[in-house]
């Protein structure tokens, strides 16, 4: 397989293709929309193209991305399938793509989830269909760009590119308070990322100077490539602290860490189903990905500092418990799942900032598992909303009687969400806590109690949806999932169980990159780093 892929040049064209195909598709969709509009064609029969084209593009993306599984060399720790060309040469900005064990699965999760997500709006989105799907295509380019970027400016560009379509999706196709939620989402995340832009520019100029001083470049023009930043960026302690804070502002809002999380429940509640799926499954991961990709290797001194790293971990752990408790008392199902997202991302933060290989692998698995389970949950919330036009838990009950298959899918997603072994969710949670226990045992024990609370709120909500008496007249005639909806849920649930039983291939592919990262941070090989941390304790 690998030989075949390389013989057709897969390694050279795959990443640019994956990245720009959705953007081209977006233009096509828009032009088609303009054409139909000018021709006075309005109505369902003219929207078929607007649904099928994005769907086919996402399917093509998915099929193409499958090759990554074989083309990616599991033993390699550095970026693979790279391609670089100048973007803005005068400012030293490159368009530089590549994936390693950290981004490989995030890219594949994007391509896996997007065809599923686009199906969710198949019948419920009925106005401006062209624009809706075109925006999702743009969003996809943005998300893939963040995960593929090897250049700080490019990273920032795609980071912000994600913001615009999401803002419009929430603001145009959202619920009753969509403008408030969209504005809050936009301003909040935008404010955070502006700090990041300043820090990126600072680093770029510093790196340019350092490379010029080292005689590597003829001019002192800035340089934003990741590997140059890792190699030539040597900030002083204070500098590093402030730059860390600037990046932290962007990433913490995106993850989100408490207390920067209040945009999330609003955005989720107002967003259309597909928007929620992308938001929870992928957008949040951009924050944790940023922490892993940029914060850890660039500011090891700050991360390992006696209290700065600890503060972040405390925020994560408090977030786990705090948002779980809040989720426990939610009446709106979507809000409940939104808060549970914050809780889950707390586990990822714990895994990232304890900087152990086990913990980081756990953090990656938490991200992927949460991506799948929250996607499934939001899709199912959307299905019920389409049928009943309400999301209040008190409006349901006993649905397992009329929608048995729906109940089955919901149970699988729930079990993964609360981390039952044999599902994807457990792998991440367990490894994260396992990794965290070495450096910060007490905090990890506190975080572990989060699994009780997560069982509490998830089972409580599930009980009120699918169990309990079937006593509402409106619920007695609800149709079970149809073929389209089953087609969305079956792949996700199959994946949840499959990876829960056999996560080793994923772990094997991400381990070299992550253990290299841990070595970078600790400045010593992993085993020695672990023992050093334990001595410090």
């Amino acid at each position, binding site marked *: 397989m690998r030989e075949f892929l390389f013989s057709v040049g897969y390694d050279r064209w795959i990443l640019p293709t994956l990245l720009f195909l959705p953007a081209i598709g977006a233009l096509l969709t828009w032009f088609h929309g303009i054409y139909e509009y000018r021709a006075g064609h309005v109505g369902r029969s003219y929207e078929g193209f607007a649904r099928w084209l994005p769907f086919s593009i996402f399917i093509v993306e998915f099929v193409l991305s499958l090759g990554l599984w074989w083309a990616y060399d599991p033993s390699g720790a550095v970026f693979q399938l790279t391609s670089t060309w100048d973007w803005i040469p005068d400012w030293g900005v490159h368009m530089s793509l590549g994936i390693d064990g950290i981004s490989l699965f995030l890219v594949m999760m994007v391509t896996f989830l997007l065809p599923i997500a686009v199906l969710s709006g198949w019948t419920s989105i009925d106005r401006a269909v062209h624009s809706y799907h075109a925006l999702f295509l743009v969003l996809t380019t943005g998300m893939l760009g963040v995960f593929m970027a090897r250049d700080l400016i490019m990273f920032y560009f795609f980071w912000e590119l994600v913001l615009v379509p999401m803002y419009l999706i929430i603001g145009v196709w959202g619920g009753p308070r969509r403008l408030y939620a969209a504005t809050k989402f936009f301003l909040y995340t935008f404010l955070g990322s502006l700090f990041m832009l300043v820090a990126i520019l600072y680093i770029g100029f510093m790196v340019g100077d350092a490379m010029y001083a080292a005689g590597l470049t003829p001019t002192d023009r800035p340089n934003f490539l990741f590997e140059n930043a890792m190699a030539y960026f040597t900030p002083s302690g204070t500098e590093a602290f402030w730059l860390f804070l600037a990046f932290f502002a962007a990433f913490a809002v995106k993850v989100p860490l408490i207390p920067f999380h209040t945009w999330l429940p609003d955005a989720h509640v107002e967003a259309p189903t597909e928007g929620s799926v992308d938001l929870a499954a992928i957008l949040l991961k951009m924050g944790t990905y940023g922490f892993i990709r940029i914060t850890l290797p660039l500011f090891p001194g700050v991360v390992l500092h006696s209290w700065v790293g600890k503060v972040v971990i405390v925020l994560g752990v408090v977030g786990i418990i705090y948002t779980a408790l809040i989720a426990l008392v939610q009446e709106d199902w979507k809000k409940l799942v939104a808060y549970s997202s914050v809780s889950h991302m707390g586990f990822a933060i714990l895994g990232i900032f304890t900087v152990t290989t086990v913990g980081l692998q756990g953090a990656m698995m938490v991200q992927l598992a949460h991506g799948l389970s929250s996607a499934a949950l939001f899709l199912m919330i959307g299905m019920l909303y389409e049928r009943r036009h309400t999301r209040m838990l008190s409006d349901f009950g006993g649905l*397992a009687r009329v929608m048995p298959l729906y109940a089955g899918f919901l149970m699988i997603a729930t079990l993964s969400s609360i981390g039952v072994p044999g599902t994807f969710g457990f792998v991440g949670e367990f490894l994260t806590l396992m990794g965290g226990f070495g450096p910060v045992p007490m905090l990890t024990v506190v975080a572990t109690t989060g699994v009780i609370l997560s069982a509490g709120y998830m089972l409580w909500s599930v009980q009120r949806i699918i169990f309990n008496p079937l006593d509402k007249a409106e619920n007695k005639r609800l149709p079970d999932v149809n073929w389209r909806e089953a087609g969305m849920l079956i792949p996700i649930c199959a994946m949840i169980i499959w990876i829960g039983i056999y996560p080793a291939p994923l772990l094997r592919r991400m381990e070299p990159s992550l253990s290299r990262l841990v070595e970078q941070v600790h400045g010593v090989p992993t085993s020695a780093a672990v023992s050093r941390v334990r001595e410090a304790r």
Partner: protein
Amino acid sequence: MLLQEAAAAGAHPLAGTAAEWLWLVILLPLLGAAINGFLSTITGWRPGPFDPDFHRTGEFPAAPASTLVERASRLVGGGDVATGTSGPATLVTGTHSVADGTDSQYVEDVYEDSLIEAYDEKLEAPPRHRFLPLVSVVGVGTMAIAFVIAVLAFLAMVRVSPETPLIRNYWTWMAAGGLDVAVSLHVDQLSIVMTLVITGVGTLIHLFSTGYMRDDRSYARFFAYMNLFVFFMLVLVLGSSYLIMFIGWEGVGVCSYLLIGFWFTEEANADAGKKAFIVNRIGDVGFLVAMFMMFWNFHTLDFMGVNAAAAALPIGTALVTTIALFLFMACAGKSAQLPLYVWLPDAMAGPTPVSALIHAATMVTAGVYLVVRSGAVFAAAPSASLVVAMIGTLTALFAALIGLKQWDIKKVLAYSTISQLGYMFMAVGVGAYTAGVFHLVTHAFFKALLFLGAGSVIFAMHRAYHVTGNHDDAQDMRNMGGFRRFMPVTWAMMWIATLAISGIPPFAGFFSKDEILGSVFAHATGSTLAEASLLGVGGSSWLYLFYALGLLTALITAVYMTRMMLYTFHGPTRTGEVESRHLREAPWTMTVPVVVLGLLSIGGGWLNIPELLGMLGPVGRLEHWLDPVVASAAERLGGGAALEHALELTLIAIAIAIAVVGIVGAVVLLRPARLLPKAESPREVGIQALLADKFRVDELYDRFIVQPLLTASRRVLYRGLDIGIIDRIMVVGFGWSLPRFLAYLGSRLQSGLVSDYAWVMVVGVILVLGVFTLR
């Protein structure tokens, strides 16, 4: 690790024998679960229309009239009646032509009821599951084959009696950093005993279920869950590392959750399932933390590795004590010990076979298995072992006391189970690991029997109530009485189990309970445990106290079990005039398992006969069998002490005397004839009410833990902190309102009058010129 590699090196004596095929024992129930789950799905799921906005407007397909008639007549006839051939038209028009001379008006009602039910809920309720025969064959068949393979493996093991476990790695489950966990099986004497119990008792209970659940609309779903449960339970006992065990540990929790809430349209059932899962989760936190500590200190999660590491440590280090206590926390959750026992009585909301299989015979004993499996860890931590024994003793006594005043027949058995589990923990706490496993096995026999017998009783009650349209409590003993006349087989078998649990020789429970109490007494002198101390009190004193409390519990056990038997099977029948005409013995699918379990309850004691009673058969078979697994740990914790024969004989005599006193006392003191049906009985007062209310522990937890947590979350965290302070003040306040306020101040400068602007301009020009001039 080295041990494991050596064991896995293929030169193992069990290599190539039937023990190699134990993976099949695990997979067969999974296969059954998959098939039955599929059958359940295709009978339950009709794909909806493509567009969910389209609601089916057509009428619901009417159930074929013939099935309704069949159902109605079967209900009337109590299930064993040939249906009359009268058509639906006759029924609807009310012609009095239906079978068996029963009141035809009633038949009409039943028919109408089912009609209304079917239409009201918009569901065609099939009277039987469409795939009933297939589901039964798959459900019971996979279990039976699994049992046969387990027996073959057991026989192979008997032949070669291996000293080390057979460990087979299948695939790498997780490999991350220094952690490397393979999906692998660990076959040794202990796990094969557990496997035999699970598959053997499990097969019987599955067979029982084919009768008990026959009329349930979700027949296939039930068997899917049951098979899935057995799968996870086997993973639990056959896994070779704590992490693999944890898969089974949580998996059985999930199945238990699903099965307790099997009839989920009752809110109480769904609540009970959720409660079971959450309380178990509290314990699971202990399991997780224990695993983290093992990994960071011993760098492995394998049973072999961890036990070897613990055995190498000196006795009583803080590390091992902490690990042991965290492990025991998990046991307390799963095996319903104080203070986490509260879920088990509620779990009786599930179908009775579930209670028999999960909440009596197998899952709840997983905690005991865990302690025995981690013998070396607990042996290295005597104070933790004392805690185990103390919690076990207290739980045994506490639950037995509550059992004294329960009226629900299943609740009595539930508290009895908690109490017996307490005995098991008493045993493993004092290092008598064999005694613990022995009691686990015999308890599986007689408690499964008791639950199945209770199930038969409830089945009969339900049928009688259903026929007469009575909605009284079918599980309350005050509504029973005198069932000996209707259900002689069940009555006889239940008495066997009662004598067994009370400790009357020669029934199984006598041997196991006596061995526990004897070990507690024996270990009180000269053992490591006796040297240790807890809360400043020496281990020796603790053990004597445990022994005394154990005896007291034995007395209470005899009393409440006899009480249950008297109220259910003896005295006058309080079920009602019409109802008692419909009471009858269960079908053979239900009586056969009960009888088999009855035989096992009689003969189970021969597994491990004490030396003193050597004339009864081979001495200490189970002990010799388990020696390779538990001997070193038992020796380290409780070794060095053996009772003199005279003393042992005295102890046995005391135990028997106490059991006899309990039974005779109950027979003499309790008057079933004076009991009133539930609806007419007065409320208990004083200590009786306290016992009947289960010491009000649930209310206590609710009032001081659950409600404060929810209220604090809602009022303080959500409304106060999250919405109030963070969102309103920090985000909307500083992020939104502060800029707007500044903008408002600025806007006040805009008077809109040109002359004002002109003034500002002139002043500005003068200022600028002034600055440039003066500089």
